[in-house]
């Protein structure tokens, strides 16, 4: 289930409406005719968490049913977006200085 939330870039406690809105936004960004592969991934992710029932179902057994765990992990590695940190100038310059001077 976690991978679906990561694909849609949503928190685990997102509501049905938030999931739907995010899905529609992503479909708009990656329409099936232009990005069929990406659309397929987004659609699968949405279908597995779209409502409470499917979320419980997915949470129960989906991970254990992974066809190929290596592929699944690699896909996850690609899906996880690098989270940017709110940083400050001092932090950047101080770290640079400590490392390079």
């Amino acid at each position, binding site marked *: 289930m*976690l991978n679906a939330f990561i694909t849609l870039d949503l928190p685990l406690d997102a509501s049905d409406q938030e999931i739907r809105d995010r899905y529609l936004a992503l479909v708009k960004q990656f329409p099936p005719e232009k990005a069929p592969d990406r659309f397929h991934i987004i659609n699968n992710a949405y279908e597995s968490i779209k409502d409470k029932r499917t979320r419980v179902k997915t949470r*129960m057994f989906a991970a254990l049913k*992974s066809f190929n765990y290596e592929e699944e992990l690699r896909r*996850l590695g690609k899906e996880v977006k690098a989270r940017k940190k709110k940083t400050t100038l001092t932090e950047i310059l101080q*770290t640079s*200085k400590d490392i390079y001077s």
Partner: protein
Amino acid sequence: MDRSEIIQLITFYLPDEGNNTSKKMGKKKKKNTKHKKIAGMDCSQLEKEGCDHLASNNAIKAVQFLKSALKKAKDPVQKERIRAGLFESYLAREKQLKEKSMMDEAREVFQLAMENLPKTDQITEETLALIISNCDACLACEHCSRFFDHHSPAPEFKKLLGEKLALENCWYPLDSLDNLSFLARDADLIKKAVDLMNQGDWEKAKDLMQPLPRSSPFFNLRMFCRAMVAFYEDNDADMVKALSMISKNSIFSKSAEVLLASVKTISPKDMPATAVKVKPDNPLLPVFYQNGFILHQEVESLIQEMEKKPYSTACTALISKLAVSIYPESPEKAVTFLVETIWSNDLYLSDNRIQNSYFEMTEKLINKKTEFLKSKINFMLPDNNELSNTARFIEMAEKEFSDPEELAIAKSQAVFSTIQSIRNNTDYNYSYRPLNSHDKKILGITEKNTSAILLETAYNALSIDNQNRALYQEVAETPYWSRNAKTIKEKIFILMCSAFPTDPYPFLQLATVYHRKNAYRKAENTLKKAKEIAPHDQRVLDKHVLSLLISADRNIGKKKFHLAWKDLEKADTFKSKNCNLLREEKKILCRIVEKPEIPIKVLKLKLETFSNFNRARILAILICDIEKAGKKNNLKKVNAKLASFFDTKKFKELTSSEAAALLMPMPEDWQLLFNHKEVLNLFLNNLKGLLKRLDDGDLIQVINQIIYPDICGHFIEELSDRIEKRAGNNQSRELRLEFYHASLANIKHPQKIVVNASVFYEIIDMADSDTESILKNAASILSKRSTGPFRRALENFDFEIIELIDPSWEDPFLPDFDEDFFPDMIPSPEGMESVSELFKMLDSVPDAFAKPMAKMMSKDIVSQAEELIDNCDLRGMPKGTIKNAKKELMVIPETVDMIEFINEFAKRFDLNLSKEARIFFLE
């Protein structure tokens, strides 16, 4: 041996020590030689040697020679020159140390360099740059001010110094140093911007610095701020543009490299030359990212470790680390996801050692949740003890799901999966593994027979989660025979009707249950409700017509023809194309039973209005119905005449697909009106050459769909003919026919193996890889129609199993080759040894013991026989119905065995059977 010889000998046996000593001596000697060499050189020679070493980047030697030169130098000019050389040598050494990441040592060396700082007029621009980057802002300003007294300041130095001040947020040197006014001009603005950037408000800082021109010493800062704004806005284009304007020697250049490495939407050819690959351990990455930047590398490490040593301590550590990178907000959830995903690889593995190391790992990672994980894994494994595993899963789920709604969904979903798995799995062996009282309590089971147990479990799950449509669907497809099962199914669909009040489907299902319970009025009322909800729904219309036809059929049976005609006329008012054929058949049936003297020509004419295909169907159903309607002579004659219609040449015009459609099962609901197997037998026995009209593909399709032991003979004969005609041909099609031929021979005799393994191996040996996969597929389909070891052989496509078994094998469990049938109505054969063995045993003991034993046995046999009558709802039923049920159940070898056993037993001992049981077992 004299003393000198002894010493020599000892020295001989102590070579290492001797060598070490000589090495140490050699080193010392070399050092002394070097010192002697330096001491012997004059100042100029030393200076020259030092400068040469500096030029060849040998900083250590350069420092050594120049230090000595400085000691010997007397001329102040020469001294100053040597000092400058020494300063440079220290800086070169400092650089080397930095490259080796020896930062503390580098700092110390820089201090030594600063002690030898040359006069300002002798300082080069490069040296100044080093001073700016290494000294504090105050000292850097001082040196720059002095430098700028002698040289005009280059824009790069202005920028470097500007950055230095911004870095240390130290601005007071500007107040006293007049020649740094170019910095003082923008200082106030930059101070404010730096404060904003230190609060993380890059946007405002960017707006504030907007007026700074390209020539400003703070231009790099402005560009970096702009890049940071673009970085947070995911605006790669603007970020790249801003970063490409930052000078190479700026203090922001390393940060710019990291930022450029994150660009994904710009093609490499459009990237600036400063864009380089960033190593995953770059210490600047955590400044900009919380996680995820090097995730793919962490994933690869875990995969590699799993390959090397699965579930090791290293894997545990990698999973923990990866979980934080994947989902820093809740790493424990990511850990659960990862351990489950990884185990999917070994889910069906039965190696206890690997399992143990996996669970050891999960204990460390998810601790208490391991028990739930174990219950999940057991639940997913194909096991005969599904219900017990479901109980365990539900028990554990109560701790896992805190939200009651989610818990209810989880429970009903588990029950759904179980029932689906049992239905898909052709083994019903689980019914022989009784559940313990704890499991029964968890699942809320009070029933005893299998289908009722499943339905009761489903009902309990649906009571807490009435929206589980998939479970209702599964319930609809679960066969049910016993009275209790029918009652539970009725309760389930009443529940569904209230859960989905606007959907006609549950009402239609409920009506079917009422039909099965012979509660026609309730069925009619339920269908009325369905019609109110969806008046134009074809399913509702069809079901309504079917209900009227069932009622008409009943009235024909009771000879209430006026009511039957009323039902048939009412059925005419519904537009139901799907039931037209049945409606017409019932009209003809009603007319024949009402007036059997009806001229056969009239019937023939009526039947000729239908197409060949429909006529064949009507005829077969009609013949079955007339047989059911009564035993009057005139009806028998009509039936004989009707059967003769099958000889018509026109039926030979049936196409392959039409012939196949005749044999395929009719709609499930129609089976409320007639038995499909009877109709099938009629076709196979009366329509001569029907199978010949099927092409190979259709023949296989038909076998796959309808085969059961009683009709195997027809197909075996047909397959033999086809194989004989194409003898010697080993093409894929022929091999497939041979495989079916051999398999059907074993399916026909569920109690023994007729065709042995070698035949199957011969066929498989001749098959190429494509054909072999076709045969594997065929074996998988046919396995569902077979029983015992042969079924295992087909399932595994491994025929060694049947080679190993005793030819007189008897399956201890009930078969399920007929999907329409649930074996739960037949009592367990446990304890029912073969008749001959039993009688042999009874004969071997004295009468005094044999009689009480036989009495005890007869009690058991009677209770089992009566149980079957109850389970099949045959209690109080007319003789005809009981005999029909017997006929239907005779397709199951265990029923045949049981009947034979009871017959044999009854011949020798008294059996106090009920009327119904006597009809069923003894007539």
